[in-house]
């Protein structure tokens, strides 16, 4: 169960709207992009919370809000019980040290003109930790932990492969000994065989350093593999939250059902028997999201009420502990 001392981070009624300047877009009535629209979730200490959803559903915006790189439109973010939106500068400095991020693109996120030693030591300098000698020791130690040769501190990112660069990104996130690491699509840009190396590394590091992960990805098989619990987002909303195994076995929201069913499993016999649900239509724009339940235009189970009223994210305890879904007909199977 959720209790104060096990919860590391909690997000309450969090919203981020991006306002569009009129005239910039041709549509004059364009008001705002509801990138994150009233989401709630919590992450326990030491667990991996996965956030999945299709492009543009608001995953990275949620990450940037938690990192306080952008200001929320409204809502609260609690870290160790304190609302970080009201932290003073000095406290904020400490918070920034405890929360780190790993980005998707190991090519774009590393400056090409810095050596990997400089890249990894930057956070130490920002937070004024150690002197030159102790930093070098720390950097070499961290490079070794992530499986890089410590003798390579003076090399540049272009001398490394994609997987090695992602290791550099991980080393940079790790060097401040953070509590929470936000991983925004950390393996999406990598080859499958290299993805597995990085995922294993991340799992090992989590155990060794008791890290908490917020793991963002659109690949549900990867997310399921690493996560304890998963939140599914659709157009700025969280539509389902459940322990990873329950989400796969007993999805309650029709979008989750469609998403699971859309992913082919690398097993030919199984795949040839599997009944698939192909969700129709495109993902609508978050500028003028559909009324009521945002999923209703694509939902095979939609009824009248779905376009009129917005379903709340509710607990369905009969479906396992802490299984939440936002659907009037949660759990109803989809008939193709």
């Amino acid at each position, binding site marked *: 169960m959720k209790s104060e001392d096990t919860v590391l981070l909690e997000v309450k009624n969090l919203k981020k709207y991006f306002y569009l300047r009129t005239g910039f877009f041709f549509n004059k009535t364009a008001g705002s992009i509801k990138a994150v629209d009233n989401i709630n979730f919590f992450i326990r200490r030491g667990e991996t919370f996965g956030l999945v959803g299709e492009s543009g559903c608001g995953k990275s915006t949620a990450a940037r809000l938690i990192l306080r790189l952008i200001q929320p439109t409204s809502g609260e973010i609690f870290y160790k019980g304190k609302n970080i939106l009201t932290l003073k500068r000095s406290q904020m400095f400490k918070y920034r040290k405890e929360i780190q991020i790993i980005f998707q693109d190991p090519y774009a996120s590393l400056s090409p003109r810095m050596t990997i030693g400089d890249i990894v030591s930057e956070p130490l300098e920002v937070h004024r930790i150690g002197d030159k000698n102790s930093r070098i020791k720390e950097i070499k130690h961290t490079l070794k932990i992530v499986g890089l040769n410590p003798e390579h501190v003076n090399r540049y990112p272009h001398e490394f492969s994609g997987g090695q660069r992602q290791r550099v990104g991980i080393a940079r996130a790790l060097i401040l000994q953070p509590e929470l690491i936000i991983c925004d699509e950390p393996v999406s840009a990598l080859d499958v065989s290299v*993805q*597995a190396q990085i995922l294993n590394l991340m799992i090992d590091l989590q155990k060794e350093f008791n890290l908490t992960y917020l793991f963002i990805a659109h690949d549900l098989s990867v997310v399921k593999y690493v996560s304890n619990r998963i939140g599914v987002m659709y157009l700025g909303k969280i539509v389902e939250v459940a322990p990873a195994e329950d989400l796969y076995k007993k999805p309650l929201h029709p979008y989750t059902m469609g998403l699971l069913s859309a*992913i082919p*499993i*690398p097993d*030919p016999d199984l795949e040839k028997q599997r009944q698939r649900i192909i969700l129709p239509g495109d993902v609508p724009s978050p500028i003028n999201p559909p009324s009521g339940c945002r999923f209703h235009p694509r939902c095979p189970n939609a009824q009248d009420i779905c376009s009129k009223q917005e379903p709340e994210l509710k607990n369905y305890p009969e479906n396992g502990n802490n299984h939440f879904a936002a659907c009037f007909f949660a759990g109803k199977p989809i008939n193709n």
Partner: protein
Amino acid sequence: MANNLQEKILEVKNLKTYFHTDAGVVKAVDGVNFDLKRGETLGIVGETGSGKSITALTILGLIPIPPGKVESGEIIFEGQDLLKCKISNLKHFRGNRISMIFQDPMTSLNPVFNIGNQLIEAIQAHQNLSKKQSYDKALELLDMVGISDRKKRMKSYPHEFSGGMRQRAMIAMAIANSPSILIADEPTTALDVTIQAQILELIDGLKKKTNSSVILITHDLGVIAKYAERVMVMYAGKPVEFASVNDIFYRPLHPYNLGLIGSVSKLNEEKKERLKPIKGTPPSLIDLPKGCTFALRCKFAIKPCWDSFPPTIEEEQNHFVACFRAKEFLNGSLKRE
């Protein structure tokens, strides 16, 4: 489905496409052999840079020359070697009898013309039809690829379409002249999962309806398992295993293929078994090691592996492998672990 009696529609033999760059010769495609049967879907998998796209582009004659050069090989389609064909005849085959769907639809859609005009142009390039007939044909194509509100959509420009719709429009262009081979190079990688499923179903449905053949290039082993009948696994420019989809997944004989299967997490797996990645990264195609290109990463490598590249052998019926140790996997004396 695909058996030996089926007609071979395409045969690629010992194909080599190299790039002559300042840094050296990039052996992008280095001895590729495969055949494609009518009505089948052939999957090509392999790591980034392993030569999948260059294989496809060579078949279509789209390699930039220079720096590219087709060094050797044959591409036999409808009884003719495309590599020996006159340019004027090639036009008849490429983009018409064999056409391609790319990852990025904007590589084949022109942003300044509306969809209708582009479709009509594609139709008229190869078919002797009047304006009206071409227009009707274009409407029919949009219907086939599942674009509704067709008359209005004919007047739309590519940028007015969503990613999935652009992909559909490109597929409409690709099938405009009822090709017998459709090459789909990562056709859905840039799309959302639920849209990916729509597009792959569309391609598969069109294939069945028209009894054409599909070459499906992808990183996604799930997509391969679902749609491919036979699979070619490429590594560093060479095919290392070529077999039925079931053999590839259930009886892998090449250590790279084995490693690939051990690297993916399966959505349906209950026990979280630790992934078994392949160590290291692929070699540079410029200074390929002398022996087996996979030896550096291979945990089964033995002495001969460092001396020469293993020959491709049909280890069991229709199961081709280039590995010195495949026989031992096959007879059980070497464990796949």
